[in-house]
């Protein structure tokens, strides 16, 4: 189980290393505009093949690259209803503060839980391998966070129930 996680993250890291080759490219259609081509998808010659890496039926990662931008969308494992709700709330909390993260996208791509948008400007200001480390670390930490949240929710529920039901003994 742990080894598949390691292989999955290695695969994503290798693919990102190869895919993060971004350069500045002003918009071809509109003068003096500079837009992330992966979001608009207007010119097919500027886009590379999208890559879908699935670890199993529940977890997957979509990496779409273009000449000046790269979009990474993640679907996190959600085993039951409680994890479903916790994941949605937690990732919504992060997405609303996307400004602070800089590379986070405000809305996840349809069908996924969270998305990152990395542009050539990010690659110029920040180091490429550090960006990749951040994404991979994020994926590891998300799983830990969600399990911690679930455990604390269950513990709180148990304590409250015990206290409440004591009065009926």
């Amino acid at each position, binding site marked *: 189980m742990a080894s598949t996680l390691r*292989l999955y993250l290695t695969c994503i890291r290798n693919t990102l290393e190869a895919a993060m080759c971004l350069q500045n490219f002003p918009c071809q259609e509109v003068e003096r505009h500079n837009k992330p081509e992966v979001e608009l998808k207007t010119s097919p010659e500027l886009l590379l*093949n999208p890559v*879908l890496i*699935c*670890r199993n039926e529940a977890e*997957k990662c979509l990496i779409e690259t273009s000449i000046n931008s790269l979009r990474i969308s993640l679907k996190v494992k959600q085993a039951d209803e409680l994890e479903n709700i916790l994941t949605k709330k937690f990732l919504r909390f992060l997405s609303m503060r996307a400004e602070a993260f800089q590379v986070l996208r405000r809305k996840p791509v349809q069908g996924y839980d969270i998305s990152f948008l990395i542009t050539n400007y990010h690659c110029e200001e920040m180091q490429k391998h550090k960006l990749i480390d951040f994404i991979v670390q994020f994926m590891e930490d998300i799983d830990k966070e969600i399990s911690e949240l679930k455990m604390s929710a269950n513990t709180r529920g148990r304590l409250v129930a015990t206290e409440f039901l004591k009065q009926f003994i």
Partner: protein
Amino acid sequence: MAGAEGFVEADNAEAIMIRIEHKTRKIESLLKQYKPVEALRTALEGTHAMTRDERCKSAHWIVVHRALMAIKDVDGMLSSLDSEYYDILMKYLYKGLSTGDRPTCEQCLRIHEKLTERAGFGCILRYLADTLNTV
């Protein structure tokens, strides 16, 4: 121009389907003789004749998938496979990873790690950049 291409595709498609059936039989016999590496090499060979026909692509994929799942020793397989097959193998690995089926994904992830160590990031980038010949 497109019409002529359509004709060529139709004839080629039938020929390719027949070739794939021959290959499937050959691969089954090789797998029975416990020669998974030869089976994989046979599976990857004919795919150089790239085609746009969806049926041929899925038939190719089924054949390669069968050979891939039979591989147990990944290091040995990669050392005996010629480097000209690395690019096409990478394409099929990513196709396998996009299926989402657990055993396929595990096997593909295992091979992907070792193949990247051998072939480097150029192999991945060639797959990303090749929008014409997709599998």
